[in-house]
């Protein structure tokens, strides 16, 4: 099982993801440079957090044209696991690998704080180690994480169960007060129809060790580590 962590100019969660994969999970890790044109045999590609190209113009707008993105698109088409976290989610939306877009937080402020997420899909390679409707405690850190999609897209997402994480209160209720950024339907993370491309705004790599305040994020890394091979085979 090999994870590849993509590095764009301006990416900063690359080392945090790398740390968790390498030091906490003990899985194989390689970094993928934005100019790379080969995925070095990775089983799961992570697009980490940051401000790729400064997020100038729009978040993820320039990053999605990086040479590595073409390969990631092909990899996703073949069923490879692609996991966008924060800025990575924004890049995946810009690249059209996931529907919708992430716009400015309703508060117009950057928010770095802990949130609660209810897990709505546990049959995915990313979440298999989570319990049914388990509530995960995970931090966010973004200024533009408000999920938007047009009404048709949104209802399609809901019908097909593509919403994976929703902001909720500590008891798992999806209420407006738990929504930190104004996302439609409290959406914190979605998956593509095929189930191999996940995008999420919260940072699982920041909650994978007790000293950082929790280990719920590690469940996602563990899920991937166990499932990646099966997915590729199927």
């Amino acid at each position: 099982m090999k994870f590849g962590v993509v590095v764009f100019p301006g990416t900063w969660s690359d080392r945090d993801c790398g740390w968790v994969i390498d030091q906490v999970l003990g899985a194989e890790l390689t970094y993928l440079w934005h100019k790379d044109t080969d995925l070095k045999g990775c089983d799961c590609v992570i697009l980490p957090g940051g401000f790729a190209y400064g997020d100038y113009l729009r978040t993820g707008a320039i990053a999605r044209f990086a040479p590595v993105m073409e390969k990631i698109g092909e990899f996703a088409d073949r069923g490879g696991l692609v996991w966008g976290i924060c800025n990575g989610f924004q890049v995946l939306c810009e690249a059209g690998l996931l529907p919708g877009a992430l716009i400015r937080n309703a508060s117009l402020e950057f928010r770095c704080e802990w949130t609660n997420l209810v897990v709505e899909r546990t049959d995915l390679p990313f979440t298999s180690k989570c319990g049914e409707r388990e509530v995960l405690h995970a931090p966010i850190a973004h200024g533009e994480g408000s999920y938007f999609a047009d009404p048709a897209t949104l209802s399609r997402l809901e019908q097909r169960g593509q919403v994976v994480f929703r902001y909720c209160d500590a008891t798992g209720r999806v209420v407006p007060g738990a929504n930190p950024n104004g996302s439609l339907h409290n959406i914190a993370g979605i998956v593509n129809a095929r189930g191999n491309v996940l995008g999420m705004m919260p940072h699982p790599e920041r909650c994978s060790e007790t000293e950082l305040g929790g280990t719920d994020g590690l469940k996602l890394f563990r899920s991937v580590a166990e499932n990646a091979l099966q997915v590729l085979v199927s």
Partner: protein
Amino acid sequence: MDERRLREVALTPDEYKVIVERLRRAPNEVELGMLGVLWSEHCSYKSSKPLLRRLPSSGPGVLQGPGENAGAITIGEGWAAVFKIESHNHPSAIEPYQGAATGVGGIIRDVIAMGARPIALLDSLRFGPLPESSRHFEGVVAGIGGYGNCIGIPTVGGEIYFDECYTNNPLVNAMCVGLVRTDELMRARAEGTGNSLMLVGADTGRDGIHGASFASVELDDNSSQRRPAVQVGNPFLEKCLLEACMDLSHTDAVVAIQDLGAAGLTSAVAECAGRVEGAGAVIDVAQVPRRERGMTPYEVMLSESQERMLVVVQRGREREVESIFNAWDLTSAVIGQVTDDGLLTVVDGSDQVGRLPITLLTDGAPVRRLVGIAPDPPFGLEIDALPPLADAGGTLLRLLASPNLSSRRGVFRRYDHMVGDATIVPPGGDAAMLRVKGTKLGLAMTTDCNARYCHLDPHLGAQLAVAEAARNIVATGARPLAVTDCLNFANPDRPEVYWELEETIAGLAYACRTMELPVVSGNVSLYNESFPTRGEGGPAQSARPDGVGQSAIYPTPVVGMIGLIDDYSKRLGAGLRAEGDFVLMIGSTHNDLGGTEYLKVEHGHVAGRPPALDLTREQAVNRVVLAAAQSGYLHSAHDCAEGGMLVALAECCLLGGIGVRCPAVRPEAPLRLDAAFFGESQSRFIVSVTSRAMPEMQSLARRHNVELSLLGLAGGDTLEFEGQLKLTLAELRQAWDVLVP
């Protein structure tokens, strides 16, 4: 020499005379501009240099004291912490967002220049009262977040105070902490005649010409004409620069890295060469990549464009370095060479446009011998004339809601304080702590200064700032290690202000020496004084009640401190952790009401003597807390600071989400009840322990001759002093967590 021209470059006629004498000729325009910026207060420290020498700067573990871009101290396991604080007050007064953002960018580059990876930022801020000063406040907070969040360095601490004296002069001090292997620590020395000087990063534009000299004059109504001096930061570019510089440290082709800050290329080259006996440099301005057409050599040498670095490269290995920068899509250019003639020679292609001795630039500015005269002491405080405390609960709620004491969550949640996966004590309590990944080491950090104390007694106030910073470090279980300081003062040409500066430095020196804390880096910002402006500057305010300057700031010596814990699993937070724990006060309480927030909020006075400080007692109390933390007796620790015991206790409850029940406080005369609750006696901590640890705590306190008293029992969801006050955590939170409006 035309006086107007001299004023433009901020030189005095006397200084000009010195220049002509030293050069034995008149400087040309380019040379005059270069001397003007380097001789400005901001770069030359001509008014403060003799005083700064009094600060202790050496000690065990100090790898680099003042004189380099940042200080460095060993922390064990082969690691060194590199850190420095710097002001960006004047730019932030004019353009709060960009001023603060570029301040953050600048201090990060100082740490990078030492070869260290920046791991944390802190920001120490002062504003006028809200809502009048909300333009400054909002802009500065957004600017710090805008830069720090984008570049991916967590902002983990800092402080914010509001006071009338900062209405026209907000203070924005940014501190950066980095880590480097001790054997990879770099120094910005232009060694090796014939080696190349490469400029890398942003293209050079007409940014901030005369910015450094601009920071050395009072703001006046004409400042608007200098406004193009404002620079726009590019954190994305700096992130690429940071990573490229980290890659550089893996090659031995690089001799040194120097950031470009105030006074741009002139200062960077002069400083770098100035650190090597006899070294000089030739710079060809024609080789400098530009953003704008038609720039003159003068403009290129003085430009303060952000996000640039000067790299000294082994001759013949420029290609290697260039390819590292290319990988990050950064422009680099060879712009000159190191020489051995002790001169900075500026050429434009084949024309020589200036040539000055390096020592004239870096050390030539005549030291200004100013006089200090003590002002009339601020009016005293008749404690007995204060009415007795009527409503402890109401007072507590008002204090918790006071902008100087309320929760800063609304600010620090706008800063990414987690990136890096190292923040193990987040902002919100006392000091922040970051782990050194791959070790058990925890690095604690804080900035502190109660400027109201400093105003009432600068010598004592400076000591109090050091003591409070140390206490904040100790509250996390870490031992204080070293200091960086940012001295923010008004116009030192006023004898009262210079006196404040002298007293402050003496106080800092005394406290740091006594507590064995080396001052390894720092910064001085003078002339923080402005005449009330009409229009956007906000309404005219007279600030200091003592009449020192119409609009002079309080003396504000911000102390940045780092501390170390060898095993971070023993670190402590401020919040209560378990129901049933004993809540104890370590240290003793006196009638310390002078200069308190209580006195200001409840009685409208800024008066009296600040709380007394006995550094021997202070250290004894710190030792008790550290020993108890080491032995694992403590569940939490929080120091008593502004707002006194009751505010501190309320914070312990709110941060832990657990209440406390206490018997009534019946102080023995002459101690007053208001002083017991809200007085700001120093050298005190509130800690929580299990009942089992009580005997050990008592013997520990006895051994160090420190007072230990039981305040109450943790539990429930109210803060209660029997018969005196009872408030639910929800009520407390509602008052406290309003954040600054």
